[in-house]
Each structure stands twice: as structure tokens, then as C-alpha cells.
């Protein structure tokens, strides 16, 4: 199953206005890994994600998904392999009803109608949104929109899931539910997030970006224990690793 590997080599991206968003970024993510890409605002996280399914073209450097290099010719195949969940579900849910939205991808793949129906029902059931099938997206709450957005991607049966800020804008309960859901997925997962507690819980590996450069790449807990690194990248420890706000110690208060 070499399809599940993401390899980025010396990736560099310069925006038309001259801003260097990514500079010499390299990493390799293997099958079944769950990796977080963290960094301050403007560190280049979103730019990096947009390269992974070929929406932005690299100024220089290589990207390989599995054995396939990302080129114009392989783009359709790669877009099916890499499922991308956007930060704002309103960008992702553009069809009249949730059903149409989830069916959009499979229909584009040219699947027969019964197959499309089955896939839509399965992926909606998987995210616990089967009852939303007939609803238009503007009648959904944020949590429901997020679930529907994930279903739209799952319906393409991707090997790699890429998510931009999956927990932003969710209430604590919806966030908890979503995290439980994401934990169950067996895909190779790549997240960007500012929710470092989520990262600590879901990702065994973390890549820290700062000003377009990879500053660290390693086990999540190790990275979050490195105070100097976090401070240098304008980041803070996740709350669960900080001292108790009441007594200032690490032990839990009664």
C-alpha cells in the first residue's frame, strides 16, 4: 500500500508578489501515520497543504504521493488519493443539499448511480450525519457542516486525509465528538491546527513550520516539551501540559 506515502522534497514556493511562503521544506510521511503541521499564523501551513493536492504548483522541489510524482498528468489521480477538508465548511459545501454535495465527488469519478448512492449513505453514516441527507447546507450548525464536509471527502475513498484546522469554531462537545471520529480513521492523516491539545491526542508526530522553514520534525510529546523551540516559533504548550492555573504546579488540583 505504497499509495499512502507522502514525500515532499526541497519544496519552495514564492507567491507572485515575491513573498517566500515555503523554503526548502522536506519530509516523508508513511502509511497510517497521523501527523500535525503546526506553526504561527503566516508560517506557511495553508500554502503547504495546498501543494499536497496540486492546487498550488511548487516553484521548485518535488512532491510524491505514493509512487506517483505530482505533475499535471497525474493530478486527477492524486486528487482522488488525497482528500482535502477545508477550514471553512461553507467553501466545501456548495451544492443544494448535503446528499448532492457528498455525491459530487463520486459522480465526477464517473461511478454508476447505485454506487454513488451507496457511497453517499456509507460516508454520511460514518460521520453520523445520515439524517442530514436532504438538508441544504445553510440549515446546518457548524458541527453538522464540519461532519458533512468530512463526508464529502470520505465518499471519494481517499488514502490520505488532509485537514485544515478541523476543530476550529466548534463547541467543546462537537470538538470531542469530531476527535473521536478522526481517531477511528485508518487513513494517513495530516492536520494543521492551533488546537495543540487535539494534536497531542491525535498525532504521534509533529512538524513545526516557522517562516516557511521546517524548524522541527519529531514525536509530538518531545516537541511540546522543548520550551525553547516553542518560544522561538511563537507557540505555547498545550493546556494539558501546562501547570495548573490555580496553584501553579503540575499536579492536578482537587
Amino acid at each position, binding site marked *: 500500500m505504497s499509495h499512502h506515502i507522502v514525500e515532499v522534497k526541497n519544496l519552495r514556493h514564492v507567491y507572485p508578489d515575491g513573498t517566500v511562503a515555503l523554503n526548502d521544506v522536506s519530509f516523508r510521511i508513511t502509511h497510517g501515520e497521523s501527523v500535525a503541521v503546526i506553526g504561527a499564523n503566516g508560517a506557511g501551513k495553508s500554502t503547504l497543504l495546498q501543494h499536497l493536492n496540486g492546487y498550488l504548483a511548487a516553484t521548485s522541489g518535488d512532491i510524491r504521493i505514493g509512487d506517483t510524482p505530482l505533475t499535471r498528468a497525474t493530478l486527477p489521480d492524486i486528487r482522488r488519493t488525497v482528500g*482535502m477538508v477545508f477550514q471553512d465548511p461553507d467553501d466545501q459545501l456548495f451544492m*443544494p443539499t448535503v446528499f448532492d454535495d457528498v455525491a459530487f465527488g463520486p459522480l465526477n469519478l464517473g461511478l454508476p448511480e447505485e454506487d454513488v448512492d451507496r457511497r453517499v449513505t456509507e460516508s454520511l453514516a460514518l460521520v453520523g450525519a445520515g439524517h442530514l441527507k436532504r438538508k*441544504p447546507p445553510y440549515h446546518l450548525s457548524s458541527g453538522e457542516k464540519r461532519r458533512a464536509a468530512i463526508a464529502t471527502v470520505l465518499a471519494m475513498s481517499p488514502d490520505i486525509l488532509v485537514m485544515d484546522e478541523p476543530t476550529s469554531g466548534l463547541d467543546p462537545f462537537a470538538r470531542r465528538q469530531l476527535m473521536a471520529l478522526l481517531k477511528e480513521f485508518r487513513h494517513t492523516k495530516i492536520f494543521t491546527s492551533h488546537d495543540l491539545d487535539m494534536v497531542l491526542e491525535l498525532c504521534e508526530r509533529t512538524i513545526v513550520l516557522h517562516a516557511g522553514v521546517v524548524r522541527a520534525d519529531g514525536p509530538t510529546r518531545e516537541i511540546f516539551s522543548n520550551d525553547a523551540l516553542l518560544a522561538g516559533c511563537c507557540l505555547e504548550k498545550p493546556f494539558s501540559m501546562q501547570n495548573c492555573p490555580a496553584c501553579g504546579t503540575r499536579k492536578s488540583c482537587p
Partner: protein
Amino acid sequence: MASIQSAVLDLKRLDLLANGDSSIHRLDARAKVLVTLVFILSVVSCNRYELSALVPFFIFPVVMISLAGLPPLFILRKITLICPFVLAVGIFNPVFDREILLQLGPLGISGGWISFASILTRSILTVGAALILVGVTGFTAVCQALERLGMPQVFAVQLLFLYRYIFVLTEESGRASRARELRSCGRKGQGIRSFGSLTGHLLLRTWQRAERIHMAMLARGFSGEFHTGRRSRFGAPEFSFVLGWSAIFITLRLQNATQFLGSLIIVSYRLFSAFFLQKIIWLTHFPVYQG
């Protein structure tokens, strides 16, 4: 901005009405679109001094509202929203067209007033029919029906996107406008200039959103063609619905039913009164002996 937001809420309500389940709701959207088109054409093609011939057309909205179980007051309120525009269009007719066309006792009614009333009635009928169409079908189904009736897909998709993002956009502009109001402390703020840049920002933001949506579409294998796999059947109920209503509208358009009804009433009144007169004469001449 509050009024725009409440208008959007009303739009959402209209949309929810389409989820109903009645004999009208279940019909194929194309049938309803066709009937509404025939209705609008028959109403609009009436002579501008025609008023009495328009009255029977109210049977269509009344029947549709009662069969589909739509809230009549809500529809009525939506129709009154467009009244100011109609008034603006028709208000000069009585001023320019002063020829007396109708004499009601001492009161002479000019052609201008009649054509004004005719414009008003026709707007109420056509706008009402369009609202009812959306209320029993849903906007997206209307778009899809239009596409299947031969409208180019580009237009259908444009309409669908417009409808999908009108909610997002009004929310966004509502927030921006509220932020401006709050910082102008109840005064005029910087007047029209600040609105200029506010609109500009909204436009740019919409542009960026459009890019992100395009990206989301590409990410799911979009290659320029929309597949809307919605099955529906144009069967016997649809045929009879279209033929029945079209026949009624065309008859109403060609025959002035009000006049016909009026003459029917006059004739029956005459027959009736002749009958009673005879009875009275008979009774007065041959009183029944009592006691």
C-alpha cells in the same frame, strides 16, 4: 441591514415550505414550472384596461395554497413587499390617462385608474404565482426543472450558486455593516465613502471565497461538468396537472368569465324575480283562506 437579514430568514422559511408533503409537492417540478409559466403568460397578456377578466385567475393561487397547505398570510406579506415597486411603475397612469371609461353613478373612473388597478392585480397574481411555485417546489428544484426543460446548464448552475451563497454573503455583509454602525456611534460615520470601501472589501472577500470553492471542487475531481443525478418522473398526474390548468387559463384568457358569470347572474335574477312576481300576484289575487 436588519431588514435584509429578516428577508433572508423569510427566504429560508419559504425554502422550508418546499419540504412539505402534499399532492402538489409530490408533482414533478417541471409540471409546476410549466403551469406557472402558462399562468403568468395568460395574466400578463391581458389588455391594460382589463380588470374584470383578471379576477377569475385568483382561483389558481387560492387552490394551490389550500391544496399545498401553504400559510396564506405569509405569502400575502411577501407579495406586499413588491407593492412599492408596482406603485412606482403605475402611479402616473391616472395623471396622464384621464379619459373616463367607466361611470359608476355620479363617479367617473378614468382609464388611468383602471390600468393602474390592472397593473397592481397582475403583479399580485404573477408574483404570488412565483412565490407559490418556490414554496411548493423549492428553488433548487425549480432551477433543475428549468435546466431539464432546456435552459443552458451554465445559467442553472449560476442560479444555484447564487442561491447557495446568498445566505453566506448576507451574513457577511450584515456583520460588516453592523461593525461600521457600532463604530460610527449612531451618527453618519464617514458617510457614503465608508460604504464604498465596505462594498469593495465584500467584493474581494467574495472573490477569495470563489477561489476556495473552486479549489474544493477541483479537489473532488471537478472537470467542468455538473452531474445532478436526480431522478423524477413526468407521468400521468403531471400531464393532467399541466393540461388541466393550461386549459383553464387559456379559457379564462379568451372568455371574460366575470362577464359571463355576471350575465348568468342577471339572467337568473330576472327569471327568479319574474317567478316571485307571479307568485306575489297570484297570492294577492287569490289569498288563502285562513280560519
